Every structure is written in C-alpha cells, then in structure tokens.
C-alpha cells in the first residue's frame, strides 16, 4: 500500500484500484476542532481538483478537493456522529471516503511522506 499527499493537505492510500482519502494531521491542526464533515454520496463521480467534501470547524468551512478522478464507493459514516475523529485520528480512523481511481497517471506529481513533511515545514 502506498500513501500519497497533495499540496491541498489530503492524503491518499492506494490499494489496488481503490483509494482511501482523508485530510492530514497538519490540516486538522490548522482547522482546529472539527464539528461537521459533509461527505459525498456513494456513487458520486468526482473529478480531480473539484469539490468532494466539506469540513467544518466552528467558524470556518473548508472544501476538500478530490485528489484524483473516480467514483466514490464508500464514505466514513462514523464521522457523522463523531466528527472529532478527524482531530484525534486524521490519518487513520478519521478517513473521509474511498474511491475508484480512473486514471493512475493522476498520481504523478503527488508527494510522498517525506516530501509532504518538508512541504509543510516550508509553509
């Protein structure tokens, strides 16, 4: 399994043809207490770089962009009752959705763990 990062602070775990998507620990730290996550419908077709989900803190709402193009196959329903999972376990239990990957070429240009860390250090 490979983990990729975007410069929009999303992480992607690729397993076969399926990607799991969430926001990074750095992102949740910037947002503060998460109070709500609006997830896409299962079956929704998302396009790389376009809105896929919304994550809300008390005084801010941020769009989460689809890091790749594909179809949403599963969403993390645990976030509905417990959005704080995004704070406590952003890169594990606090995942957002799973999607099919229609074009693996879109993975090019994404960062690995190390590159993302130095990207954040530069912010």
């Amino acid at each position, binding site marked *: 399994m490979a983990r990729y990062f975007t410069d929009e602070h999303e992480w992607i775990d690729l397993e076969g043809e399926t990607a799991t998507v969430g926001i990074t620990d750095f992102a949740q730290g910037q947002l503060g207490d998460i109070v709500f996550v*609006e997830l896409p419908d299962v079956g929704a077709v998302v396009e790389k770089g376009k809105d896929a989900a919304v994550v809300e*803190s008390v005084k801010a709402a941020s769009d989460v962009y689809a890091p790749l193009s594909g179809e949403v196959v599963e969403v993390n329903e645990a976030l509905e009752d417990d959005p704080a999972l995004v704070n406590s376990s952003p890169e594990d239990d606090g995942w957002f959705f799973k999607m099919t990957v229609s074009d693996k070429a879109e993975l090019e240009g994404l960062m690995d763990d190390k590159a993302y860390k130095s990207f954040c250090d530069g912010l």
Partner: protein
Amino acid sequence: MRYLPLNDADRSAMLDKIGAPDVDALFVDVPEEARLSGPIDGLPMHASEMAVEKHMRRLSKKNLAAADAAFFLGAGAYRHHVPASVDHIIQRGEFLTAYTPYQPEIAQGTLQMLFEFQSQVARLYGCAVANASMYDGSTACWEAVAMASRVARGKKRKVVLSGALHPHYAEVVRTMAKFTEDEIAGAPPSLTAKPDDDGLIARIDESTSCVVVQYPDIFGRLPDLEKIAEAAHDKGALLIAVNTEPVALGAIKSPGELGADIVVGEGQSIGVGLQFGGPYLGLFAVRDPKHVRMMPGRLCGETVDAEGKRGFVLTLSTREQHIRREKATSNICTNSGLCALAFSVHMTLLGEKGLRSLATENHRLACIAAERLGKVSGAKVLNESFFNEFTLLIEGDARKIVRDLTSQDVLAGVALGRLFPGNDALGKGLLVAVTETTTEEDIETLASALEEVLA
C-alpha cells in the same frame, strides 16, 4: 442638534490630536468633484422633536386605523389584541438597541430568548427545529423552496405550487425561481368548497423537489396535508406547508404532525401588529433534525461556559453568508429579532391554555360571522371548512363594494380581485377574517351594510 454630543471645542481638540486643520481634510480621499457643495436639495434644516412629531401625526391621521372601523381584513395579516406588556418589553433598551448576539457572553438575554422562541415555534409547528426567524412569511416560503432544492442536491427542479397559495407568496417564489434553475408548476385558483387536493397530488412526479401548500389556504379552507404529504413522499418530494395565521394552530393539527417536512409561515399575528405590512416575522422549521444543516438563517443552540454554566450561542454558522460567502444556504443576515421577541413574549403570556382559548374564540366568532353573512341575500359562504377566515361569494364586484363601504367606516375584507388581479372568475370573492377583536356588533354592521348594497 439633540442627537450629536460633540461640541465645537471637542471637535477642534480632536482635530488637533488627529493633526488635521479642519474636518474637510478628513474627506481628502473624496475627489473634489464628488463632494456636494451645498445642502441636499430641498431638505429643510434640522427640526425639533415637536415639529417632527406634528408632521408625522398629520400623515398618520390620513389613514383609517383598524380600531376606528368594523374590520375584517386578513389574507396573510391579522389584527389581534397584543397585551401591553409585549410592547413594554420590546422597548427595553437592552433588547431594542442590542446587536445580533455575536458576543454571547454579553448577549445571553437575546440568545436565551431566541432559544425559547425557536422551541415555541417548533412546538407550534409540530417540528423538531425552528430557526431564529426570517424576514416574513413570503420570503420564508421562497427560502423553503430553495432549501428543498438543496435537499434534492439540485437533481430535482420542479416545484409544485398549490393554486390556493397566497398569490404574493407565489409571486415571490416565481420571481426568485426566474433567477435559479427551479421550474415552477403553478395552478389557477378555483373557487370550490373544498381544496382540490387530488388535482394537486396529480401534478407531483419524480422530478418534483417540493410541493407547497398553504394551511389554512388563501380562501380559508383546510387542505388534507396528511394525504398530500404521503403522495409527495411517495415520489421523493418534500412537503412545504405554509401557514399565515399561527393562531389557527391552537385549534387545528400542526403541519408537522400531518407530515410536512418544512413548515414556514408568517408570525405577525402573535405580538407584532399590522404595521401596514412590515416589519413582520418569518417562521421557518423542519420536522426532521437531519435537515438542520440545510436550513437558512440563524440558529441558537445550548452549550456551557468555561465554568460549566448553561449558556446559549449562535451555532452551525458555517451555513451562513458571513462564513460560507457564495456557498451559503442563504444570503440572509439581519432577520426579525425584535419581532421574534414580541412573538415569544405574547406566546408566553398566552401559554397553551391561552392560545387554545384565543383560537377557540376566533373560530367561534368566525362561525357566527359565516352563519350571519351567509344569510345575506346575494351572498353565500364558499367554504366547507375554515378557521377564522372564509370566502364570501357576493353578487357584485367585491372590490367596488369594499371601497364603497369604507365611507361607513367598514373595512369589509380583502376582495379576491385585489389579490388575483385579472382573474375575473374571482371577482365575486370577498375574504372575510374574524378575530377576537371583532365583536358580534361588528359582524352585524357588516351584514347590514352588505344587505344594503346588495339590495
């Protein structure tokens, strides 16, 4: 000038501190050609309190106040007695001159009041959650339609309007829909004893996002909301119930109980007064708490402070324009806070017992009026059912009759011709509203006056 505390000594001391030679120097960024050289054309100089009051009183006297007439107007605005303590409380400076409660530590008065108001409205409407108010019933109605479109995630765009929806409300919906992608399916109003629920149901299909039904409707009749709700839900559409007379809900089942998904309406009847049409009070509630995040407008919620004491805050603000900007659920900002207070105080004075008594008295007098007016030769009551307002069909031009009767200080009702201009079939219709402020003598006055003009 009585509203301006600075004197010339203050002004010059302040200019010294600023380092400006005169006040014009502070307007240096205003291009010379944009500055007015003289006073506003025609506007008199400042005036005393006495002079202004005199001028305004002269204008006020050119109007026929409802209290000075036998009064039967309704159609979305009703005359009810408002207890004196309501006006006293809304004039307390701490309510009147406060801002939107964005600093909750020093706005608990407004916030707790809003929480109580939301709870009262939710219960009255039979819903889970009500917001902290909209501008008025008609704009709340449009906002409900827009919300239904959001619930359908924009995949359904057909809005089915009942033909017996208040025509101004329908016009607001039509106007706004011109600028969104909603397709409005209206129907002409028809003067039948019972509302055409089946005709409405037949117009609902898979592409329908919502059905909008007024209850009681513009002619005063009571549609079968339960049946309409079932039909709407079968097709995956929401039922929006519109109520323009909240007092009715002390006597008839709430729209929420009957299955309406969004309930909106005008709250003016309770606490607010006629005021020539505004400011009024838009009420907005949803039956299913799952829909809360799709709602427009402010919401007040309970929480605790750092010492664990209960307190209230505006919450779920990320739906709103000041945070979400172009992705907000509505552009609404200022709403009807003080009218919500008036509503809440009046509703507190009434309580359930008082509201039920008030509703019973309204209905009782309306029944007496229907019976008496139905006996006027050349007039008959259209409705099979009604609460405190019904449609009278008269042999003649109702609008002319209404105008003519004003000379006898009789405000006979709202002619349907005024509400539905150009629809000749409705020309004989007169909407008659009766509240606890109407006396049996008033009813007799109207009946005799009609007998005279119809003879």
